[in-house]
């Protein structure tokens, strides 16, 4: 196996190789041929990404354990958490829809957080977690399937649509989901490849 120069970067979108220069603060390096982003100057250290991930984990636990919304109609009230909503779809005979929702709104975000914590804790003290390469690859997949931001807008949309029918009120999970969406965006902005820069 021939190992090429470390200072090269290949554009993911078009395959053109470039000589790599770390971009200036807040600047973005773009491919000279297809204009895709090659890399950014990363402002987040391993410690700050770890801190954001711990925060995301705490808020995510609130998001899946508290009601998304409560609906009152003539004295009776119904509310549902995210896992309950998925379980109800399964029980109603919509197994495939339930699986799609579970993967994109529940499992992928959970893997997004759990694998990052597993990798980042040892990395913050300069150690490489067992199965590091495998975890980074899985994180790439978790990022692709994670649609928590779409789900958050879905909860808002449902609330608005219910407002005409009955008394609908948002639950704590909706606010937690909003925070999860913002934290995920911040964590994802650092990408995954930079994790390898800290491995000797």
């Amino acid at each position, binding site marked *: *196996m*021939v*190992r*090429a120069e*470390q200072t*090269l*970067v*290949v554009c*993911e*979108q*078009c*395959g*053109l*190789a*470039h000589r790599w220069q770390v971009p200036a603060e807040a600047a973005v390096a773009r*491919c*000279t*041929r*297809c*204009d895709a982003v090659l890399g950014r100057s990363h402002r987040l250290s391993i410690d700050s990404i770890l801190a954001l991930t711990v925060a995301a984990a705490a808020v995510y636990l609130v998001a899946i354990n508290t009601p*998304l*919304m*409560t*609906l009152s*109609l*003539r004295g009776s009230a*119904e*509310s*549902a958490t995210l896992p309950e*909503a998925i379980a*109800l*779809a399964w029980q*109603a005979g*919509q197994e*495939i*829809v*339930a699986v*799609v*929702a579970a993967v994109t709104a529940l499992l992928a975000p959970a893997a997004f957080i759990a694998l990052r914590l597993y990798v980042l804790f040892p990395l913050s003290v300069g150690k490489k977690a067992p199965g590091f*390469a495998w975890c*980074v*690859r899985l994180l*790439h997949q978790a990022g*692709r399937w994670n*649609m928590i*931001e*779409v*789900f958050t*807008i*879905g909860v808002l*949309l*449902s609330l*608005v*649509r*219910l407002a*005409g*029918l*009955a008394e609908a009120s948002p639950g704590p999970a909706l606010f937690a989901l909003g925070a999860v969406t913002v934290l995920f965006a911040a964590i994802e902005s650092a990408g995954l*490849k930079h994790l*390898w820069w800290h491995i000797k």
Partner: protein
Amino acid sequence: MSAGLLGCESCGLVSADVVGDDPTRVQHCPRCGHVLRATKPFPLQRTWACVIAAAILYVPANVLPVMVTTSALQRDEHTLLGGIHELWLDGSWGLAAVVFVASIAVPVLKIAVLALLAWTVRRKPAWRRLERARLYRLIEVVGHWSMLDVYVVVLLAATVRFGPLASVSAGLGLLSFAGVVVLTLLATWSFDPRLIWRDHPADGRLA
């Protein structure tokens, strides 16, 4: 196309392409062990398969009801477009626009763009490469948003549970629509944007 240099999509390390066009050998990244490929496996076949399947499923997704509402007085079936029309009639034009973009515009855009990209790779390889590359990145970014209506129906069915007074359940159209969303995502990921730049004069050079 043997560009000579391959970037690892998992860790970013650049390695020399030692396999070339030999389909029997596979090269792995020396740092992280991820497979290194000049092109994804069977990109056009897989993209066409998913795009055609998504286009077929798109018909029942629009014809069959995605949501069934029952109240003491009546039972109503709502299709995707019907739901948007109701929002529009209620005066929620902003919401109607959001749902229209997520449920109608994004899936149609993805199917049309992927068909165009897969067709031009073979038939018009040199035609507007930069614009085609940008179109691919656009559908990569907006792809997730078509899941919106799936979540809304799941959530409405989970909270509107007042028996004969009022209840909501998912229709068969929702199953087809979820299939369309997943298939268009798989189609996007199986297409290889590097195919757009095949035989480009700059291919294989260092920029």
